[in-house]
Each structure stands twice: as C-alpha cells, then as structure tokens.
C-alpha cells in the first residue's frame, strides 16, 4: 500500500492506506480525528467538510493524492480551545440540536467568512446551502454566521 505525507492541523503525518481511501476515513480511522463526520459519502451533505489550504472541501470525496503537500485543517484544528470566532458564535447562539452536522457547518462557515468577512444574509444562505442539518437548526446557523462575522470584525 502506498504511503502519503499529510499535514493535518499543522502536524506532518505519514499514513499507509490504499490509494482510493477518502481523506475522511484517514482522518477518522487512522488519525483519530473523529470530529469530521460521515454523512453521505457523495459530497452532498457537508458533514465531512474540512479546509484544504483554507478552502472548504468535502473530505469524503477527496483522495490523499489530491491533497499531498497541502494544509488540512479539521474542526479539531480550527482553534486550540474552541475560541475561533465561528465556534464562539455557535456557542453564543446555542446552535446544535443533535449536533452531528455542526462540525461541517462550522468548517464551511469559517472558510466562507475568511473570504467574505462582511456577508449579506443572502450570501450566508448561499454559502451554507450545501450543508444539511437534519434537525433543521438553519435559523440558528444563519444567526451564528452573522454573529461570527461581527466577532471577526470587532
């Protein structure tokens, strides 16, 4: 089996997996980073979203060959202690119900706000449209992204 060099949350890792193994399962099974969730496996729900060089990426449909030499950030690496403005906003608004999709929501929101620090409500809705929340906590996700934008600004 081939080996791959990965840089995840600032740490270099070597993993040996079959070449078709999605990044999601390397993170969860090999690296014990289980914050990134499995939802659909076909890049439709967003539960597995991570950052690849700062870009929100579906880890369930990303192979290791595609990300070698790139910086991977997972929910565990977004901040050391939950202090990223998006995480803070998620707590302020008390977004989660079951909570399962929220890591993916937070990763999508944080990548989006890094590109657009002062979004309109429509821009937020469009940016978050790819992430399903089965509990339908959309009202709060929307509000939390708005709060996070304010937190980043101040």
């Amino acid at each position, binding site marked *: 089996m081939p080996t791959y060099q990965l840089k995840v949350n600032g740490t270099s890792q070597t993993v040996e997996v079959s070449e078709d193994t999605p990044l999601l399962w390397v993170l969860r099974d090999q690296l014990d980073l289980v914050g990134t*969730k499995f939802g659909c496996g076909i890049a439709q729900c967003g539960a597995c979203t991570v950052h690849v060089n700062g870009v929100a990426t579906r880890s369930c449909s990303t192979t290791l060959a595609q990300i070698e030499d790139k910086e991977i950030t997972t929910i565990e690496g977004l901040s050391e202690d939950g202090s990223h403005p998006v995480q803070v906003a998620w707590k302020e608004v008390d977004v*989660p*119900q*079951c909570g399962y999709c929220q890591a993916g929501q937070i990763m999508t929101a944080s990548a989006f706000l890094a590109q657009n620090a002062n979004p309109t409500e429509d821009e937020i809705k469009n940016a978050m449209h*790819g992430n399903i929340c*089965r509990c*339908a906590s959309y009202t709060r996700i929307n509000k939390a992204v708005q709060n996070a934008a304010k937190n980043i600004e101040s």
Partner: protein
Amino acid sequence: MQQKTLNLKAKTMSTTKPSNSLAFSRRSFMRTTSLASGGMLIGFNLFNSCKPKTEPSIDLASLNYNDFNAFIEIADNGAVTIYSPNPEIGQGVKTAMPMLIAEELDVAWKNVYVKQGVLDTENYTRQLAGGSQSLRLAWEPLRQTGATARQMLINAAATKWGVDASECTTNEGVISNSKGETLGYGEVVKEAAVLEVPEEVTLKEIKDFKIIGTDVGNVDIDKIITGKPLYGLDYKEEGMVYATVLRPPSFGQKLESFDASEAKSISGVIDVVKIGEGANALLDSEERNWTVVLGSSEKVVVIANSSWAAMKGKKALKAKWVVDSPLESTEMQDKKLIGLLDGNDFTTMREDGDVNKAFANADEVLERTYESPFLPHNCMEPMNFFANVTDDKIHLVGPIQTPEFAAQAVAAMLGRDVKDIHLEMTRMGGGFGRRLYGDFVYEAAEISNTIKKPVKLISSREDDMSMGVYRPAIKYRIKASVKDGEVTGYHIKEAAVNGNMYGLIPNFFPAGAIKNYKVDVANYKSNITTGAWRAPYTNFLAYAEQSFFDELAEVMKVDQVQMRLDLLEKVKGTTDERIQYSPERLQECIRTAAEKSGWGKSKDGVYQGFVAYYCHNSHVAEVAEAVIENGMPVIKKVTCVVDCGVVVNPLGAMNQIEGGVIDGVGHAMFGSFDFENGMPTAKNFDRYRLIRMNEAPEIETHLIQNEFAPTGLGEPTLPPAGGAVANALKAATGKRIYKQPFMQDPSFWKTPEKEILG
C-alpha cells in the same frame, strides 16, 4: 460500593399544579447511598408510562425498590453531578432534565456537571426517547428528587448546628441558619446520606424559579463545536474491527448464496461471514418486543480493519437473492390503499352520532382524499453500533432510543441473562424515531458473537436509506357535511401500511366538536419495515385535516380562523374523558397566532395559511406565508404559537420549535420516497431531497405563558407545518394540493407573477 436502603412509609403526595399532575409514592422512587469516595448519591424513578393518562399506568407502590431513573451525586467538595438517564437525540433532555433537579436542589447551574447515564435496568426505568414524553413525565418526580436531596442536606446541617431545620435556608449550594452561620452542601453530604428520606418536601412556587424558565445552553456544546468524540460512530476500542452488512436489495428478497472471493482479496478485509440465524430466532421468539422490526433474510457481513475497507469489501461481494414475497411498487401500494378506502372493511376507532344520517340531511357535503409517501428518517449519523460479546459479558455502545428493549432483545437472541449486558448510550446524530428500532444493535451483537471480537457495525447512507423502518405510506379520505351553516358530520378514513393510528388520535380535535363523528381505519401488511417517524401519523394527518378544514371554511363561506374557534367553542365543558385537548388553550393559541401574524391583514403579495393542532399534549397554531417569486410560490415565514405549559429551557425549546416547523415544511414540500421492485428509488441525498438553508422559512415563535405542567415539544410543531404550507400555497396560487410532497411536480405551481385571489 456499599448500598444502604432505607425503609420508608409510603406516602402519596398531593400535586401542586393544574392538569397532568400525578400522584406518586415516595417509597417507590427514593434511595440514598453513601459513596465510598465520600459524598452522596440519591436515586429516583420516573414513571414508566409513555402514554398520557391522568393516572400513573402502574401501581407505584408495587415498583421494585431498585427501579431508579437517574442519580444526583454530591461530592464532599460540593460538586454536583447529575446523571441524565434518557437518550439524547437532539431534543435537549440531557440539558433540560437536570435543570429540574438543580432548580429544587438549589444549586447554581454553573456548578452542575451533567453526565449521560448508562443503561442500568437495576437502577433506572423508562430510559427511552420517544413520544415527546421525557419532560412531561419528569416534571414532578425530578423536582421532588431535587427538593428531597436539599431537605436532607438542610436536616444534616440543622443537626450539626443543633437548630431546627425550619430555620435554615439555602442559596445556591450554601445552607444558612438564623444566626447567619453557613455550611456548604459538601460539608454535610456524609451526614445527609445516612439520614432518613423526608416524607414531605415543599416544591418552589413557579415565581421563585431561578433555573427553570431561563436560557440554558446545550450541556455538550463545547464538545460539539470542537469535534470531540461523542457519537456512536466516534467510539473506538482496542482490537475493534469494522463490519458492513449486505442485506437484500429489495424488501421481499432473501439470500440464496454468495461469493466472497473478490471481497476477501481487498486489502484490509479480514473475513466474510453470514448472520441471520440469531435475528430470525428473535423474530420468532416470545421475548420479541415492539422494537424488533427487521427482515428475515440472512445477511453477508464483511469484517475489516478499517471503515473504508469494510465498505469496499461490501461492494465487492457477489450475492444471489431469491424472491420470497411480492416485491412492492409505489403504484401497487397506491392501488391497495385506495382499494381499502373504497372498500367497507374498516375498524372503527371512534363513533359519535350517525355520520351517514348527517350526510343524507346535509345542505352540502365535501369529500377529499389525501396521500403521503413512505419516508426514511435520514438521521445525519447513519445507523451504527459497537458490540463485544464475550463469555463474561456483552458490551454494547452506541446510539439507541430504546436501550432497555435493545438489551432485552440481545439477551433473548443470544440466550444470555440481560444482566450480562452493559449498554452505554452515546449522544445521537438524530433519532426521529428510527433509533427506536434496534435492528442494527442485534446485527452488531450477532456479528460479535460470530467472530468473537469487538466490532463496530457501520452503515453507508445507501444502507441507511434502504434498510429503513420507514414512515409508512398513508391515505386519508375525509368527508364532512354542512347544514344551516354548521358542520354536522365528519368521517375520516385511514388506509395505511402495516398499522394504523394509535388510540389517542381519534380523540384529537375535531373530536368532540362535531355531533356526528367517525374514525375508521384499515391497513394491509407489507414486507417493507415500517415504524414511528417524528410525530407518527399526525405528521401527515395534521396536513390532511387542516387542509380539509381550509376547504371546508371556503364551502361554508366563513373565515378559517373563526371556523376553528367556533368548533372549539362546542367542546367547552365536555364530559368526554377521552378528550384530552383543551378547547380554551387551543383557542388561545389560535387567537394569538391570528394576532401575531396579522391574519387577514397581510401585505399585498403575501398569502397566509392557517393551522391549529393538538398532539403530544401540546397545543399549537401556525400561520405560513407564501409569496410568488419567479412564478413559483415560496414559503417565506411561519408564525408559530405554542402552549406547552411551563417552558423549562426557552433556549432549547425555541430550537425544537424552529427545527420542528422547518422539518415539517421540508418533508411536506420535498419528501419523496418511492419503491420499485421492492427497492427504494432514492438511496442518497442526490436523489432524496431534504430542506436546506435557502429553503428554510423565517420562524417567528410565541410561547403561551402559563403555569401548566410542561408537555411535549420534540414533535408537536412539526405536524401543523405541512397544513399551514398547503393552505398558504392555495392562497397564493388558487391551487389545492392533495398529495405530499407538494413539490413533486413543480410545474403544477407555475403561476403568473400577478396577484391571484385565493
């Protein structure tokens, strides 16, 4: 740990609040224990009734002394840990239930640490998430428990000081006497733990609450936002292997043979085994309980050292299936259900007066048929479970709404004592009713028992969507008569797959409001597994009835809101004990919703749809607003008014309400799930549409303030949403829809931009 049981006199407590009060016996539910580590543990029991009744369903005095439902642990440093017994599926009980205890214990919420209790059939009871009953049933007992523990701490302090307990007060974990001396709870727990449990304690007045009624954040929030392991799929153990299960692709098929050679050649695949004997024996077993819902085919299991290898291995399996029973299609199901509605073979669940006479004498009769598809639950966390079956014990870990039933079934299946089972509940990535059924638990246990290893059963989304215990397809036919401006007759017929509405539903509104009233049901048995789905039956029935009301109001030429108020007026003062909804409370919701939404006064281009509904002991009214955008109606806003009694945690309650409404809107609009040749036509989110951010309407919520005991909130706001949407769509486009999902054929709704009178 040495446990001390105290012998106490039984005492029936009087209740303090109107309605839904329960009398209970103290002896049945209290026990204290000194902890070897120092500190005190107090246990309590919730009533194990999950059906709303005015009296407890069991004789509480006969309860086993060991039947405790949760524990408070007070360490000698004063730290308070509350073990929350009930499964957390996103409904917020892990936060709200401990709030009830903390309130009466009189401790600061910031000093309370909440832990998930494990399944403990010796010490807990009704460890179940379902029916929106957790808080309703916990309201009195949990507060009594907190108050009892507080009184014991006071008694211990009073003894230490040599003063009368009645002169002592508490404030956030500190006891004071009249001289101004103070003792922290931690300083007296050792003494308190060996005191007799007081027979009578006084509960706080609602106006004195410090925690109940305040916004309390989710107790797991820090773990959720930082991605800590919380869910079943996150659970790992040394030596654990992964298992994927190949089940028949169609309902009605059975495994004939399989070829595992290619699967076994995949790197990481350890073995391929067959299971099913155990599950089949369970299906035939007398110890089978209602949560055992699964197919009878044998299954092929791939065992691997990683999730990915297990998934790949499953894809590489080659299996032959034989048809064992008819492969159903949506077309065939539709014909069967319509056939049932057209026929005469019904079970009558409620009958008042004579509907046929009312129809014969009517000025006008309206009859409509409403149709719904099957629905998968689609919990975001696909079904999974960890099992490690050894000769010593059976260790089960994962997401399950009915841990007690699952443990009993596993014990029966493996011929083991239920005491051998140690079941840990994880936080669940959604429940919605799917995890009431433990098929994946039995499979995991059978796999571990076969391979003698700790194993984690995992599912793909495709597995999850095609191994469902679905909401069954249902059709309703409703017929009503109008005479001299009054509704004189109302006849509802239900045709469903596998089973019919539960016994409370025929007594929901409008039962009691119409003189001649009849509820008839029929079903046919399908090989497709079906079960509860968030707000079973009412999730579709509310739309059918409330859409029908809307049309009936048109026929009667009365305002939709006024019509409902008038009907409810007739229920007031009813002596019919089957009627559990309150016409006064529902009227208040209706009036509030009409006022807050500006009913009848909406802006140009905004079209409203009205619904009022009662289920899960809560009263709800919703007003949906549609506008036309690019020639299509779009739901922009829903005003939701809820009377669920005292709101324990408004922050969590608002989340449940908003989520319930949007979930209801989403499934009514988009939830499409057909079968062809016994197989679902959608197996993942590319073909199955769930509501997303862009389609979610704004939700404006209003909670009715009163002092009634809390009622359900995980489900009640979902059912009315579909009806509110349908009625708003009618107002916006002039078209009525009689079938869910509403957006199955978007061209049906294509509307000129100009205003149309609805």
